[in-house]
Each structure stands twice: as structure tokens, then as C-alpha cells.
């Protein structure tokens, strides 16, 4: 799907703070993508090891194909690492960082958000390193619930935690909770693909969307 195929109201998504939040329609039901299965089936000869950059590129390409088949935009995809036995830095750079970068860019193929599920101890270090290197953040289930990993200001983290705790926040609640900086901070999180904003200014946590699409 090209940008021209997307709903017209999604074209502003990801642009600078101060613009209206991008999404007007609700997101599509979440798609769960078994990253280990992709690695095993398509790339690494039946081994769920996410190692080497070419493997990472191939897995990312397979993920993008699956996302492109989602009928509605925007969408939230759950990238499930449960079966990934090992994740090296090169692969994490391709599968996590470059995927996020691609869907944050203005020329992104569609409106896509990501939750990284079952990011265990064996994956977390690589994921955090590549996020930090690119200045990115990602919503990751580390086993005890979703957390914001990667680069974020204290303001962003506080806003994200509040949103994650509540699930949804309306425009008026945002202003009451965070003052006049609340709305731009939440919009910034949406620009960074770690929160979702509706046209009326209300915000939803990605995990809440996954639970209640």
C-alpha cells in the first residue's frame, strides 16, 4: 500500500508537535507476528536465532510484508519474541531499530505502531543498545508488563507511564494532568510511535489498543 492509498487523515501523522493528532479512525485489530517463526521458517534454516545483519534484513522485510496486508491503517502489530533464542546487535538493529525508523519517517509506507512482546533478558540488552544508538524508544513487554525502553526524556517517560496505567486519556484529562505541556508531550510520543492519538486529541496506550482494539 502506498501513501496515496492511505486514509487522507493519516497523512499528517508523525509530523511535528503542534499539529493535530493524526489518526481519526480507530486502529485495526492488532496483528501478532511470531518473530522466531519468521526467522525459523524463512531465513535461518529452522533455527530461531536472530543473528547476522542479512537475517535481520530478511526478517524485517517479512514483517513489513505482513503489515502491508493489514486492511486498515493505522495498525498496531505485536512482534512476539517468545521463540527467539538469541538476538545479536546487528539483527536487533535491523529488526527493531530500522523497523521503527522506517515507520517514523515521513515517507513511511503506512501508519504502523509496534509492541514488542516477550522481550526477555536474553533480548533486552541488544534491544536497548540499538534503541539508544538511534535515539529511539519502543514499548516492550519485559515479562512484568509493558515498559518504555530506549531514549526518552523524564517528561516523556512520566506521560507514557501515566497513559500506560490508564489506558486512555482524553484531551481535558491530559491538560489537567500535565498542564499545557501535556498535549505536545503525548503528541511527541505518538510521533515516536509509542502512543496513539485520535483526532479529538485523546490518547491511547498501545497495550490498551492491543487488548481492546
Amino acid at each position, binding site marked *: 500500500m502506498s501513501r496515496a492509498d492511505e486514509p487522507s487523515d493519516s497523512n499528517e501523522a508523525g509530523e511535528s508537535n503542534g499539529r493535530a493528532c493524526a489518526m481519526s479512525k480507530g486502529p485495526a485489530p492488532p496483528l501478532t507476528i511470531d518473530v522466531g517463526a519468521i526467522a525459523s521458517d524463512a531465513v*535461518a*534454516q529452522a*533455527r530461531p*536465532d536472530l*543473528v*547476522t*545483519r*542479512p*537475517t535481520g534484513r530478511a526478517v524485517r522485510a517479512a514483517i513489513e510484508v505482513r503489515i502491508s496486508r493489514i486492511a486498515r491503517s493505522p495498525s498496531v502489530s505485536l512482534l512476539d519474541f517468545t521463540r527467539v*533464542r*538469541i*538476538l*545479536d*546487535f*546487528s539483527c536487533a*538493529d*535491523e529488526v527493531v*531499530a*530500522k523497523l521503527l525508523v522506517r515507520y517514523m519517517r515521513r515517507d513511511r509506507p503506512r501508519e504502523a505502531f509496534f509492541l514488542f512482546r516477550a522481550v526477555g*533478558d*536474553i533480548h533486552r*540488552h*541488544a534491544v536497548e*543498545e*540499538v534503541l539508544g*544508538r*538511534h535515539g529511539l524508544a519502543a514499548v516492550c513487554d519485559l515479562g512484568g508488563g509493558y515498559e518504555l525502553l530506549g531514549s526518552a526524556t523524564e517528561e516523556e517517560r512520566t506521560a507514557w507511564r501515566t497513559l500506560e496505567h490508564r489506558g486512555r486519556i482524553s484531551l481535558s484529562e491530559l491538560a489537567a494532568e500535565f498542564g499545557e505541556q501535556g498535549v505536545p508531550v503525548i503528541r511527541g510520543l505518538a510521533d515516536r510511535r509509542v502512543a496513539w492519538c485520535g483526532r479529538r486529541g485523546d490518547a491511547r496506550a498501545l497495550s490498551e489498543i492491543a487488548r481492546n482494539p
Partner: protein
Amino acid sequence: MRVIEVPASLDYRNVEVLYRQCGADDAGPVLFDARRLSWIDPNGMLLLLAAGKVAARSGTLPRISLPAQQEVTEYLDRMGFHHAAAGIFKSGVRRRRRSHSVSDVLLEITPVTTNSDVHDVVDRVQSRAGAILSNTLHYPPSAVVRFSVILSEVCQNVIEHAEAPGWVAAQAYNWRKRLGRHVAVIAVSDLGCGFRASLEAEHAARFGDRWGDATALEAAFLLGLTRFADTGRGQGIQQIRKQVGRWHGILSIRSGTARIADTPDWSSRPPLEEGLTRFPGSQINIILPERIG
């Protein structure tokens, strides 16, 4: 015929003895006389293979006289040396079938040519490294994944930067006299373009007259520079440095005429050596000591 005397002990500490005898520019038939060899680690084994390949560039395959001590020859066999050496040395190496039985070897000499080889290395190590890392080196259970990641990144360095095939090997030893501890030794070697040539087009200009093998190693090792413009590149070596540092290990890279290293307090090796005998490609050495306390 030029005879290269392989020292009785050939490990990471004295590989320079062999480098000095194997200048890349020497021509003519070569015999590697390893009859006196009584101790060798993965660094020594990969150097013998690399030196044999370099000697073969003269047009004649070199010969090798294998160690007189049977236990050394058997150890070389268990490490896959004879298998790897077939086709590099003219004779004196009996190509033996690789055993698929349970091995005490952490990682036999394994060619690194494609990304599939890296997957093979990671797969093999994950099934073997757990017991050695936990029981011998007393690392936590999660160490096997981090160890595998180190191997993956270091092998990818060969494929992506050397633009030539290489080898990797690893083994655990009891350094009772030397350190009073067990260690795991990982060696990776290639005969590719080396760090200087790999980085030259992108970075030589900014270093001006300082550019050379040592500067190129500093650029990659200390600054994380890479020939790729991509932000995500160059982190492999940085991450290996971090992890090896956490385990109080040694990481050294020799390329061209220089060697750079992160050394813990138990090692007396200098952080940078220059003016070494020129040798093609890059040679990486990682030593991980047993955890104490």
C-alpha cells in the same frame, strides 16, 4: 626451501615469533617445522593456517611437519586443525573425518565465509558452551547467550569488513600456573583487507598524516567508526568490548602492523603496539577468565 620454525609454545602471547618469520612478501617454497610444538591455543592454530595460506601465494603449497608429541597432534585433530589444513599445506597433514561425537572442544576451527556459517557457529556453541561457561568459568546461565552474541558479532566482522573468508575457534583451558584460573580463548582470523583498507575511503582524510594501521584500529576500536554511513553500524566491536570488559577479559585486534587491546589488570599487554611485522587481514583474540568471588 625456507624453513619457518614454529615455537614450542604458540599461543596469543608469542604469536609474534611466527609473524616475524612469515613476512607476507617472502616467496619460494616454505616448510613450517612444528615438530617441537608442545602447546598451542586457537590463536596459534589460526595463525598456522593463515601463514600457510600466505605462503601458498608464492605459487607453491607449503609443507608442515606436525608436532612430534602425539598428544599435541591429537589435540590439533580434536580442534579440527587437520580438517582445516587440508588444501592449505601440501603434505604431512592427514585429513581426518570430523567426529560428530560429544567433544570437549568449545568450538573447533570453523570456516567463516557466509552468514550461514555464523548461524552454524552460534548453533554449535549454544549446545556446548553452557556447561563450560557455568561449571568451569562460573558465569551465570545467561552468559551462554552473550557468549554466542560475541561470537556472532566477531564472525560477522570477518564477512562484512574483511571481504574474505576467515576462521573462528574457541577452547577452554586451565591456566593454573599463569593465572590460577580457567579461561576461554576465542580466536578469529581472516586474510582480508584489514582495518586500514576497510576504513580508508571513508575516514583516512580526517586523520591526515596520522592515518595508518594503528590509527585505523583506534578509529574502529575506540571511536566505533566503520566504512558504512549507517548509524546502526560499527556497534559490533563496541558491544564486544563492553561485554568482554564486564567479564574482565582481554580483547585484542591485530591488523597490518599494529595491535590494539582492552586489557584487564591481570594482563600486562600494552593497549597499543605498532611496528609489528606486516601480515594480511585481521586477527582477533578474546580471553575470558573464570569468575571468582
